[in-house]
């Protein structure tokens, strides 16, 4: 039985390409990426990052000031774009605050605040500085808590933290809460911000590239880390709505293979894509474009390529948008879900930026330059450490 499609009645993104969907749309169409040499804090790493401008000058003030940290600043910036917060407030008027759920993905939340606090430990006692609030900054739930309070929502809320699939899985969790009758609408989102833990952590595993990341390229040698916030408002689809973009399906799986390496033949990724198609009641041939996870590490792309070929063959157009934004980790799912909505709404396939010489051993049909064409259904893939996989399907209501 296919799932009941869920209407995406509002969506927004802030990432290195800029604030709001218009900035991403115009960059994706013009072919202008946003990666730059790492200039974050005192990180001395030969790598490139997708950094959001202006967070240093956008503190959280007023009654939510305790939440002030880079990650929640990014969340605040995201909620303020594209009239998203206003759309949610209008939904709150009609459904009631306690009937709207909040489902936010993040991998590291505000850990940067803890990193900074550890540098400022008391030289005599080793104690952390008084001003450091673990609960409202570093803790995983902080960003979901902030989102609830900023929007005045009191429905079911949780932070999903499954590494790089976090903000893809929020769609599945929100769908289930809607179906179970625990809420009538849901704010889903993902927020992850630059920090030294991920920059040095991925570096320690040899997974960061010294160049801008090149997904599917023969010379690809690692990822570029980015930061982003994205949100979407989900509602049950009114019977007469045939125009809106919807979540058509989702598929989740586990690799059960290794903590930080993907299954060599993409077994878990294959299952996630197959389950997504089954939950949407669609065949592979009905998918017009696949937004790949495409991190540009040699093993990730090779694994995903095998999975895509197994499920779709070699004809479905694919690209990774990590070359534009960097890998935004726990925010990658929502960022690329928003890109999927933009592709459907505006009719285009983003190219795989920085990919110059596609790896001849990889067989998926990689789109190198952005092309304008009508798009009905998009699959978006998100896979993470711990072997956690999630594939989503977006499109207009099936006839």
């Amino acid at each position: 039985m296919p799932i009941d499609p869920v209407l995406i009645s509002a969506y927004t993104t802030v990432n290195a390409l800029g604030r709001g969907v218009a900035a991403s749309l115009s960059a994706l169409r013009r072919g202008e990426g946003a990666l730059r040499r790492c200039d974050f804090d005192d990180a001395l790493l030969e790598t490139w990052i997708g950094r959001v401008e202006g967070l240093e000058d956008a503190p959280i003030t007023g009654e939510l000031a305790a939440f002030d940290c880079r990650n929640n600043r990014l969340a605040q910036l995201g909620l303020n774009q594209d009239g998203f917060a206003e759309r949610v407030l209008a939904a709150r008027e009609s459904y009631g605050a306690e009937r709207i759920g909040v489902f936010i993905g993040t991998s590291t939340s505000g850990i940067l605040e803890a990193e900074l606090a550890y540098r400022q430990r008391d030289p005599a006692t080793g104690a952390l500085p008084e001003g450091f609030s673990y609960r409202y900054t570093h803790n995983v739930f902080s960003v979901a808590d902030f989102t609830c309070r900023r929007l005045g929502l009191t429905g079911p809320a949780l932070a999903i933290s499954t590494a790089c699939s976090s903000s893809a899985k929020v769609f599945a969790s929100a769908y289930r809460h809607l179906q179970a009758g625990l809420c009538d609408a849901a704010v889903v989102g993902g927020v992850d911000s630059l920090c030294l833990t991920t920059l040095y952590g991925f570096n320690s595993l040899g997974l960061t590239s010294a160049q801008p990341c090149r997904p599917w390229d023969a010379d690809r040698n690692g990822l570029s880390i980015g930061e982003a916030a994205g949100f979407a408002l989900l509602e049950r689809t009114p019977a007469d709505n045939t125009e809106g973009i919807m979540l058509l399906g989702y598929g989740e799986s586990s690799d059960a293979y290794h903590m930080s390496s993907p299954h060599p033949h993409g077994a878990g990724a294959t299952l996630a894509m197959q389950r997504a198609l089954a939950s949407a009641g669609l065949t592979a041939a009905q998918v017009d474009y696949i937004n790949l996870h495409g991190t540009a590490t040699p093993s990730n792309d090779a694994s995903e390529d095998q999975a895509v070929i197994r499920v779709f063959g070699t004809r479905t157009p694919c690209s990774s948008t990590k070359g534009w934004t960097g890998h935004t980790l726990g925010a990658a799912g929502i960022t690329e879900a928003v890109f999927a909505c933009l592709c459907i709404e505006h009719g285009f396939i983003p190219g795989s930026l920085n990919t110059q010489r596609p790896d001849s051993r990889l067989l998926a049909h990689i789109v190198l330059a952005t092309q304008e064409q009508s798009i009905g259904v998009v699959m978006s893939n998100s896979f993470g450490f711990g072997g956690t996989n999630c594939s989503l399907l977006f499109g207009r209501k099936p006839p």
Partner: protein
Amino acid sequence: MKALYVNGIGVLGPGLGGWRESAAILKGTRVYRYEPLPTLTANLLPANERRRTTQVIKLVLNVAQEAMEPADVEVQRVYSVFASSGGDYEVMDKICMALTLAEKPVSPIHFHNSVHNAPAGYWTIAATCSMPSLSLSAYDHSFSAGLLEAATQVLVERASVLLVAYDYPSTFPLAEKRCLYAPFATALLLSPARTTQSQAKLMVTLTSQDTEDRLDEAPLERLRTGNPAARSLPLLQAIARGSAHRVILPYLANRQLIVEAAP
């Protein structure tokens, strides 16, 4: 929401060494005495993975294994939900300390163990289970949020779901900012249908009209309030008593979960 069934239980905490012993304590036929956790192992895992595990991961694997032992469902078919307020504080501490040093020598093993879904990753490897797994936090209300998520999975996906709630105290200096009383973890195997292994039937609803249940015995109440995963204890007590009970668990923003537990 429709009913779900508890078909397996695991418990591990100070003086609570497994479900059978914990059930006797919770229904009052055995005296509770605080004792530190025994040394935990991770025998489920292949040797190369076992070497990389932390106390938190071992705690999780032990309760998960206990809940699955009597199960009449294949472990490879079971979904999983992992609920923890803050994950592995000790690993976070090690990474933050490393980042204060000039070369910032973050250990790759600490880094992959630092993800909130690290225990979930090890569990799926140990169980060779490719079913969906979700790791979440709702700070002090993570058990209730996990129970809701697991319940929606049981009812919407028509799947058996292993819910694991766990929290492990941090050490200095983080302990001054996040103080947990003792390690505690519980695992519930939840299913859409009654089986011969069913220990309880649960009906879960949301309310804002009630106040959370407390435990009569002071040392257990201290554990309940001192570890978010131990907020589950009133529910475990109701199951242990084996008669119909209405349990009120704390949830977000002055809301509560009503769990109607019946044999």
